[in-house]
């Protein structure tokens, strides 16, 4: 079977406007979209720029806009697209370095804003016991699977319209730490996420959840954060 592949091309140093190149690629069994991209670069056009590393959905570097949605190129089987016409574009909402490679800097700048690392409580004598089956723990556990691929960031309309909005991934990370009993910087992080550019920009659109390759529902994390922000306003927030 032959695939008709349309690939977005843009070089900021020479091109004023982007263009699409088309390629005819032979499909092989279990072919992933990343295989298609590599095939183009190996046999058709060595100047095609894109990013990948692990090829098994772990590193989070191959997110692209494939047939209308951000997806991990390495984890998207060509057969799952249900068509032989494939359109590949760079991840939306991020500046393009070249072709399919985007600059993740704005994404990680926002990630850093919420202090994405554990700041342990100093005065604890006993180790904190977090039961793995406690409700809160179950929520956090699967959210920790995030590989910072930026698919959610590229799928969110609020990120598209407000360049300052922190976005689903950073807020999900913030929630994981705020809900963690061992963490000492809970309030500090809440003050950051309760800004106008924080949780309030989320309108429960669920596009982030639809595209997340790890099946995370950032919407739920953000709603949990809104709840805590309101409790904090009402003077009911502890922890």
């Amino acid at each position, binding site marked *: 079977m032959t695939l008709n592949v349309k690939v977005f091309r843009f070089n900021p140093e020479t091109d004023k406007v982007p263009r699409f190149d088309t390629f005819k690629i032979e499909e092989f069994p279990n072919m992933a979209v990343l295989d298609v991209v590599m095939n183009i670069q190996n046999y058709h056009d060595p100047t095609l720029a894109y990013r990948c590393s692990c090829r098994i959905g772990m590193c989070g570097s191959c997110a692209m806009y494939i047939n209308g949605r951000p997806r991990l190129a390495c984890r998207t089987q060509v057969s799952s697209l249900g068509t032989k016409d494939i359109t590949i574009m760079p991840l939306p909402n991020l500046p393009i370095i070249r072709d399919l490679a985007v600059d993740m800097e704005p994404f990680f700048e926002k990630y850093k804003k919420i202090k994405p690392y554990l700041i342990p409580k100093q005065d604890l004598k006993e180790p904190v016991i977090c039961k793995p089956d406690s409700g809160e723990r179950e929520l956090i556990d699967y959210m920790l699977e995030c590989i910072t691929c930026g698919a959610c960031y590229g799928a969110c309309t*609020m990120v598209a*319209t*407000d*360049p*300052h909005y922190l976005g689903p991934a950073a807020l999900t990370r913030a929630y994981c730490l705020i809900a963690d009993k061992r963490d000492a910087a809970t309030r500090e992080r809440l003050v950051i996420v*309760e*800004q*106008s550019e924080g949780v*309030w*920009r989320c*309108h429960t659109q669920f596009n982030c959840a639809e595209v997340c390759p790890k099946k995370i529902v950032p919407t739920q994390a953000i709603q949990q954060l*809104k709840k805590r*922000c*309101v409790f*904090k*306003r009402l003077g009911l927030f502890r922890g």
Partner: protein
Amino acid sequence: MLSGWTWLFQRITAFFLILVLGVHFWVLHYQNPGEILVYADAARRLQTALFLTVDSLLLAFGLFHALNGLHNVLEDFNVRSRSITAVLLLVGAGLFIMGIYSLWQFV
């Protein structure tokens, strides 16, 4: 800086609007869709505590919900300015005063 509060009030007003707007819609139009409303009926309704309450709540909650909703949309487009907030507040206050004055003249 009021973000959390306005979010909460947007939800509270939404909840009451379902009920109050439902009553308003039904009583004024769909209960009797052929009828043309006349002043005497409106005046009689507004002399009852129930309808005065329903209409006043509809006015207050509807206005807050509508203008705060508009403010939200503007913030989503990264339009954040004190003068826009002030204009929305003034428009809301003006409409509220006029509306409440018109409803309460029958008391």
